[in-house]
């Protein structure tokens, strides 16, 4: 076995040093009925060649996004990741290190996290950010729990424009915590009416929303603050903040975002990186790790994990969250990609996305029977089709186009969304892809 350095001679020598006659003696505490004599019923060890062959075969059964005209978004976006990102995150010193509990041996990870936190704060327009959570959906659920702690109020109002997975995760997290979650109906293209009362801990909205619509939430923020509630803004496409007014400038109290779009591949949904930013006054209620600047005994600048008393390993049942392992390496990929992009690169990337989406929207809306529902958008929008959108997605896939997400996949019970198709275009989309898509759609609807 190529991963096991002990030789049979080593094992014998070590057992002798221990004073055991066999390895079984070291398992003597296992109840006799649970000891297994033989091997479990699974295949035996294989070399790299066999493993690579078997897994490549499975991979080949999937249609990779890069091999077809590809227009799927809905909370995960296919962007170009520069080669340097993957090279750097595979350096063993990043890849194979632990959570930086021993700061003298982890200044690299800690400084990178400090830079990441700064980048997230700048992008979202917020004062502080943490060192990442699992993903955007769990970050959103953590934001709701945080608002509950801060306001000591019992109700969260979730906008109908919030990603359905985020809504579901908030509901799952809240179901046993005594928090009431009020999820408003999804209503693409319509300004929803959001009622607040004295029990409202927070309102959660998304920008751009699940249907691609952009809104200025400043007035809602003011209403929330008047009522003593917090405004949580979710962002599922982080690249949008290269072009769009940030939640911090709209008065958001907490931002919960999906950072996958910068530095991270689609990966069939994970691992991704949850971004979490807030106002400084609430810093002690933030979940997850925080890297902070300090000095060493020689007076030199350095970094540590700080405000750890919020966390489970110290506060146990009174912790702000149970989270331990988060998305360190995905956060690093985000930090490297954003460092590469810089101000110029990110803003241009965002403009490229918007241009591609505008181009696509015009082309698809020109197909007879198709109606563009979204008024203002970044790189994703919703269309109403004359046929069920799920059917269109299936037929498009047969024609070799991955044409978007049928809203019915996420809201199967909503008949009013059956004809709604979400379509995204990033910088990866070519004019040829757009032509193929509009031709295929026209053919289907003919």
């Amino acid at each position, binding site marked *: 076995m190529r991963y096991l350095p002990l030789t049979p001679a080593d094992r014998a020598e070590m057992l002798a040093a221990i004073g055991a006659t066999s390895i079984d003696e070291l398992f003597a505490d296992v109840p006799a009925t649970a000891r297994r004599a033989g091997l479990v019923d699974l295949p035996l060890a294989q070399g790299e060649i066999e493993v690579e062959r078997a897994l490549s075969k499975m991979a080949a059964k999937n249609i990779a996004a890069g091999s077809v005209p590809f227009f799927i978004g809905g909370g995960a976006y296919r962007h170009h990741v520069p080669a340097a990102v993957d090279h750097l995150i595979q350096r063993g010193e990043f890849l194979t290190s632990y959570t930086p509990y021993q700061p003298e041996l982890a200044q690299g990870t800690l400084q990178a996290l400090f830079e990441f936190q700064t980048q997230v704060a700048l992008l979202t327009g917020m004062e502080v950010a943490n060192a990442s959570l699992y993903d955007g959906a769990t970050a959103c659920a953590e934001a709701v729990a945080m608002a509950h702690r801060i306001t000591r109020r019992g109700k969260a109002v979730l906008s109908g424009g919030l990603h359905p997975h985020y809504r579901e995760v908030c509901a799952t997290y809240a179901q046993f915590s005594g928090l009431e979650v009020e999820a408003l109906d999804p209503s693409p293209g319509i300004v929803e009416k959001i009622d607040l009362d004295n029990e409202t801990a927070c309102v959660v909205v998304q920008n751009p929303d699940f249907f691609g619509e952009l809104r200025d939430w400043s007035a809602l923020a003011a209403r929330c603050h008047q009522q003593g509630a917090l405004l949580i803004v979710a962002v599922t496409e982080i690249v949008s903040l290269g072009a769009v007014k940030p939640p911090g400038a709209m008065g958001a109290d907490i931002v919960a975002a999906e950072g996958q779009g910068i530095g991270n591949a689609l990966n069939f949904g994970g691992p991704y990186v949850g971004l979490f930013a807030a106002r400084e006054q609430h810093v*002690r209620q933030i979940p997850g790790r925080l890297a902070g600047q300090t000095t060493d005994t020689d007076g030199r600048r350095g970094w540590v994990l*700080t405000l750890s*008393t919020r966390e489970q390993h*110290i506060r146990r049942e*009174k912790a702000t969250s149970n989270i331990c392992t988060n998305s360190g390496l995905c956060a690093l990929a985000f930090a490297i990609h954003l460092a590469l992009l810089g101000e110029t690169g990110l803003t241009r990337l965002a403009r490229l996305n918007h241009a591609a989406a505008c181009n696509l929207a015009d082309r698809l809306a020109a197909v007879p029977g198709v109606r563009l529902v979204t008024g203002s958008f970044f790189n994703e929008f919703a269309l109403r089709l004359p046929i069920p959108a799920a059917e269109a997605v299936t037929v498009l896939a047969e024609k070799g186009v991955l044409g978007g997400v049928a809203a019915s996949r996420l809201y199967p019970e909503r008949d009013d969304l059956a004809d709604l198709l979400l379509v995204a275009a990033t910088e990866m989309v070519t004019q040829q892809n757009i032509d193929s898509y509009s031709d295929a759609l026209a053919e289907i609807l003919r």
Partner: protein
Amino acid sequence: MPTLRFTKDHEWVRLDGDTAVIGITDYAQQQLGDIVYVELPAPGSRVETGKEAAVVESAKAASEVYAPVSGEVVAVNGAIADDPAKVNADPMGDGWFLTVKLDDLKALDGLMDEAAYAAFVAEQG
């Protein structure tokens, strides 16, 4: 001499008329180490004997401060919220936490006096 009493959770309480001044003991601050953060109740709120009244944290530990007596919070020591090191430097003086208007002046009767507390701490090793 004003009445000074101690709890087994290492809080001290000093009676001043019908008002009690509350803080943590020198032993408690030593056990915690360098204090980095203090969370105090709102003046006007109520504290109950044996229930959490404040929180005190070092870089690696967090601890509740339990109210030794019940009553209404009259004042809190904002100076230790701004500069928690004051609790380490002078836990029985400048490092006080809060004052409480006592529900019951006899509330201090069951608590330890200075000598009893010193013996209690000695037992803790």
